[in-house]
C-alpha cells in the first residue's frame, strides 16, 4: 500500500510537470531551416534527390550513410539470431490443421498482403512507403502461412531457411554494390543523381532510390522470414 502511494505521487508529479512543459513544447508554425531545405530541394532545386517523396529522399540520399549502417545493424541482429539457433534441429509433428475456411482465407489474404507490400516498396520513391515498410509487410505473408497451414507447408512450397538467407544476401549485396558503384564512376559514396539516371524509359526512378527500396524490400522481408521460421520451431525443439 505504501508502495502504491509513492507510485501515485510520482505519477501525479510527472503529469503536472508534463502539463507545465507542454506550453513550451507547442508545435511552431514555421519550419526549421534544415526541414525547409529538404522540402525545397527534394524534387526540383540544385541539390535534388529526384524524388517527390521527401522522407525517402532523406532516407536513401541526404542521410544515406545513416541508413546504410542501419541496414548493417539489421544484418547483424538477424545473423546473430541465426547463429544462436544454428545447432537446434527442428522437430516435426502432425497436427490436424484448420478447416478449409481458414486455409482459403489465408490464401486470399496472403496474396493481397503480398501485392500491397510490393506496391508499397516499388512506389516508395513516389508515394509514402519504401523498402522497410514493404519488407515488414512482406514478412507477414510467411507468418500467415505458418499459422494457417504449418511450417512444413511453407518449406514444401520451397521457402526454407537457406533460400530465405540467399534472398536476403542478394538484397544486401545489391545495396552494397549500388552504394559503392558511384566511387568507381568518379563520384562520392552513395551519390544519387548524375551517377544514376532520374528517369528510365520515361518512368520516374529517382536515381538509385527505387533500386535501394527494392533491395531493402528483399532484405527485410527475407530476414524477418528467417526469424519467423526459426521462432516457429515447436516447443521442445532442443530436446532432440
Amino acid at each position, binding site marked *: 500500500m505504501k508502495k502504491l502511494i509513492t507510485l501515485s505521487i510520482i505519477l501525479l508529479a*510527472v503529469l503536472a510537470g508534463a502539463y507545465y512543459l507542454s506550453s513550451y513544447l507547442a508545435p511552431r508554425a514555421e519550419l526549421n531551416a534544415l526541414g525547409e531545405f529538404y*522540402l525545397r530541394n527534394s524534387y526540383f532545386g540544385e541539390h535534388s534527390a529526384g524524388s517527390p517523396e521527401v*522522407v525517402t529522399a532523406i532516407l536513401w540520399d541526404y542521410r544515406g550513410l545513416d541508413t546504410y549502417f542501419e541496414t548493417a545493424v539489421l544484418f547483424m541482429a538477424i545473423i546473430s539470431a541465426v547463429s544462436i*539457433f544454428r545447432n537446434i534441429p527442428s522437430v516435426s509433428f502432425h497436427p490436424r490443421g484448420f478447416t478449409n475456411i481458414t486455409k482459403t482465407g489465408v490464401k486470399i489474404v496472403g496474396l493481397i498482403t503480398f501485392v500491397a507490400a510490393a506496391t508499397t516498396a516499388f512506389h516508395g520513391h513516389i508515394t*509514402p512507403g519504401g523498402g522497410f515498410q514493404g519488407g515488414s509487410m512482406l514478412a507477414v505473408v510467411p507468418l500467415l502461412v505458418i499459422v494457417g497451414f504449418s511450417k512444413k507447408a511453407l518449406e514444401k512450397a520451397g521457402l526454407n531457411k537457406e533460400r530465405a538467407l540467399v534472398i536476403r544476401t542478394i538484397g544486401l549485396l545489391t545495396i552494397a554494390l549500388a552504394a559503392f558503384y558511384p566511387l568507381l564512376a568518379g563520384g562520392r559514396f552513395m551519390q544519387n543523381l548524375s551517377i544514376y539516371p532520374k528517369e528510365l524509359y520515361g518512368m520516374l526512378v529517382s536515381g538509385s532510390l527505387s533500386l535501394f527500396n527494392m533491395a531493402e524490400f528483399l532484405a527485410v522481408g527475407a530476414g524477418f522470414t528467417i526469424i519467423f521460421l526459426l521462432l516457429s520451431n515447436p516447443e521442445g525443439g532442443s530436446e532432440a
Partner: protein
Amino acid sequence: MTFALALIVSSIAAIIIISLYGIAVRPNLVKKIICLGIFSDIINVAVILLGYRAVKNPLPPVLTDYSQKGVEELVRGAVDPLPQALTITAIVIGLAITVLMAYGAIHIQRKYGTVDVRKLVRWEE
C-alpha cells in the same frame, strides 16, 4: 497551448514512466521486453510530435503537384520530414533488437525452465 496538446504530452510522460517501471521492477523477462517495446514506441511518438507544425491543414511531406507552385505549397504546409525519416529506421532497428531479445528469453526458458529473474539468480534460496 490547447487541452489536446497537454493531454498528449502528459500521456507520453506517463507512458514513459510506466514502461521504465516495467523494465526496472517486473521480474518476468517477457514483460521486460514488452515494456522496452512500449518505451521505444512512445519515444517515436515524441519525436514525431516534435516535427509537427501548427498550421491549418498540415500536409504530409510528399510532393503531389510537380511544379514550383507545388513546392511553395509544400513549404507552407508540410510537416518536418526529418523526424519521420529517423523514426522509420528506429522502428526497424527496434524490431530486430526485440527479436534478438525474444530469442534470448526463449533460450533461457528452454535451458532453465523459467523466465523469472528472481529464480534465475536464485534469490529465493
